[in-house]
């Protein structure tokens, strides 16, 4: 069985989400900060007239926060029919992967990640962590 995953880079790691969940990938829009929101909320953005929540995946995955010079990108995913924007370092290709490449998350994975990663695809040049979108946007 083949899996199609939209991939993106985050803190030098490759992540992937089911391509059917992805609406689009965009350059960073002007975002509005939300005071007193959890750290994982990166703000709100105007996506063609719709106010969309932006999730800081770095914060969600327990990685280092972005510096002032970083230019993250947005991956817009659908959750319960509503768009949610994920903040990522860099958007990658859509990969078609085989079930045989898939394995359970390694026990060495950090606890913050273990809950959100459904499994690992082994690629030629490294690993691809498959993310559970529904859990990832739960801020």
């Amino acid at each position, binding site marked *: 069985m083949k899996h199609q995953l939209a991939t993106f880079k985050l803190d030098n790691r490759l992540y992937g989400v089911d391509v059917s969940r992805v609406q689009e990938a965009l350059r960073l829009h002007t975002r509005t900060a939300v005071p007193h929101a*959890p750290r994982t909320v990166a703000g709100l953005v105007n996506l063609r007239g719709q*106010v969309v929540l932006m999730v800081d995946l770095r914060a969600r995955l327990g990685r280092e926060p972005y510096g002032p010079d970083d230019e993250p990108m947005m991956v817009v995913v659908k959750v319960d029919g509503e768009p949610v924007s994920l903040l990522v370092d860099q958007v990658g290709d859509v990969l078609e992967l085989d079930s045989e490449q898939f394995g359970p998350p390694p026990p060495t994975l950090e606890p913050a990640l273990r809950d959100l990663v459904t499994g690992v695809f082994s690629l030629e040049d490294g690993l691809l962590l498959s993310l559970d979108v529904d859990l990832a946007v739960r*801020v």
Partner: protein
Amino acid sequence: MDGMDDIVREFIVESYENLDQLDQDLVALEDQPGSRDLLGSVFRTIHTIKGTSGFLAFGKLESLTHGGENLLAELRDGKRPMTQRTTDVLLKMVDAVRDVLATIEATGLEGESDMSAVVADIQSVLDDPTEGQSEEATVVEEPAAQHDEQVDEETTVEPQEVEEALAKAPSAAPLKKTRIVAARKPRTPAAEPTPAAPHAAAPKTIKSRKAIAAEPMPSATLSAAVDDGYFDDLDSEIAEGTFEDEAALEGVVEPEIVVSNPAPVTEKVTAPADGEPREKTARERESGPARSASEQSIRVDVDVLDALMRHVGELVLARNAMTRLAGDLGDASLVRASQRLSLIATELQQGVMKTRMQPIEHLWSKVPRMVRDISASLGRQVRIEMIGQDTELDRGLLEAIKDPLTHLIRNAIDHGIEPPTVRQAVGKPVQGVLTLRAFHQGGQVVVEISDDGKGVDPLIIGAKAIERGLRTHGQVAEMSTQDLLQLLFLPGFSTAETVTNVSGRGVGMDVVRTKVESIGGVVDVQSTLGLGTTWRLRIPLTLAIMPALTVKCSGETYAVPQVSLLELLAIDDKQTGVEYVGDAPVFRLRGKLLPLVELRDVLGRPERESLVGAVVVVLHSDGGPFGLVVDQVLNTEEIVAKPIAAAVKSIGLYAGATLLGDGAVALILDVAAVARRALDVDLQEAMKKVAVDTVGASKTEPMLIVSVGEGRQVAMPLGAVTRLERLNASVIEQVSGSAVMQYRGKITPVADLAQLLGDGGTSREEFAVVVCTRGHHTVALVANEVVDIVDCATADFSEVSGYGLLGSIVIKDKVTELLDLHSAVESADPGFYDAEDAELVGAGSEL
């Protein structure tokens, strides 16, 4: 309802409307048992339903309404009086009809439910001989009943006649008409001697239905009767003074009102030229007065309107963006075009909003029936008064306030209005009055529910609050009446001593408040013990698009709904008006202290260096007005609230988000939540006290004002002061760590007020000493200067306080703190108040 015949659907919708009207009419009938007008209306409604259900082969409905019709016919003919039992059975029938309609709506069929019990009930009332003739009906109203029936029949059954008569009216009617009118003029001043002719001759001048209702409409219909020769007899009767009783005369007048009501007549008068098919007019005639839909209105699916409103919302946002762009580019023709767009968008918005507006009557029409049922089950007697039924508001909001309103009404009857025996005992009319009032005020709709019941006892509320552990004794003791009433809105609060099935289960006012606040409204309560309670809802006109103020705070833009906005204040270079009570900044606004809330603090943004240049946005909240300090006010903008993610909503500071003209997202501040979060509860309540108490007259007391430390003013009651002295600093000596001085040959303990109030110490060459003496004890309080002695109302003191203080007040444009004299004196001489030997020496000053 898919696949259901349009005709059935229409029947159901129309019947529901008619049944609502019926509920009202039946309840109203109990108050005015003889009203032909109401009876006629009720009869026609039932008759219509019966007729249509027979036509559509709904046998069950037909048999139900048939019984009711028979009963009503007897009532209308005056053969039986209206009694409680009759009303009950008729209402039961209405409910049964409603049930069947619901089944038809759901399944398209009448269903299996058994209606024979209701039918039997009606029959038993019909058969009951004791319910028969009444004196009232026979003696006084008999003639009226006769006329009524006949006239009514004529209009109902043979519509052509009216029209024919109308056509003839100009020539035939005036003479006789005038005579009748003249005969009864003293009794009915409303019926001016306006002959029928003007109506028929110049019908185009009468535009609105309302105007017609106000006019003496009988003329046209009367002319029909006159034409028929019927009223000839009546005329002579009146002329000859056959009626001995004035009431009988009144009775004669009444049938006119009945016949005048059927809508077709008014329509004919307004538009005699239009070739309306006769069939339709006849149908409308059947369905009763005024409420029948005029041919000028159509039914529109609410979803369509909702979608339309959404689109208009988007259009408004696009317009905002366009206006901004045009302004930036400065192209004259573009600006013109955008202005035109703006104008059209505004008109469109208003138009669409208007389609969604409904008079509050829609909601209130169900109230009389509800009140009747509740008061019957609780053994209360309640009369309803409604003022401002035609006040309009958005149907979504109407829907949203339905539950709160129902709750408040139930509550008013259950907890407000006393049982008849109690009312009698306290000398009130046995029948309680429940008043519903609606009106527009400042772009909002205000809905009031008042009862003339026993009111809410603040002491009981206080006790309940303590009992439930919601407040402590100390807190309650310090609360004003208004504050105590606010406790009613706390979750888990119910003052009902017993739980009834109507109310008192402890979920109540907090739900009302939550619901009202969720639509951007406010609810408050006022109550006078023994006289009644008024609940007031203030709600925005519409939800979809709201005017808002955009403000800047720490580089970010926020929207503040204008519903809560009272005024804007700028803080000038000298920070005029800004004072500090303890650490809390307040603004002195027209003699009152306005607590200031820094939006930066609320949002956890870096603190402002100086208040200079900031803007105070004065907002209305539950706890009274407060000032929100922002960096800058940008604009007023029409905004469309967009839903926001739960993660943002749950922060509890934002009512939503919106898009600004430049496309940026701005958060809409939830003013009530900001106020709750930012204002320390005590501070807020103290401020409220300033507002509330200054209104009421309170006793005044002379106060001694002294200056303390760096520009602070402290007040103390003059009555507690024995003498004022001006002494040199050298008199103070230290004895084993305490300050004392020799005063009138005695060693007197000294308390430095500046030190006491945490303002360093008084370090001056010369200072003022306030001497308090009680028996053998004397204490000296050190201050900078005596400033003044003023009379002020002690109640004016707000309870903004710090250590050693009781509150504060504005005296001669300066915030003055009220000294806790008791503790100040005790700090110098702990035994001062223990001394048994008699009173305070003083009550005045020996300067």
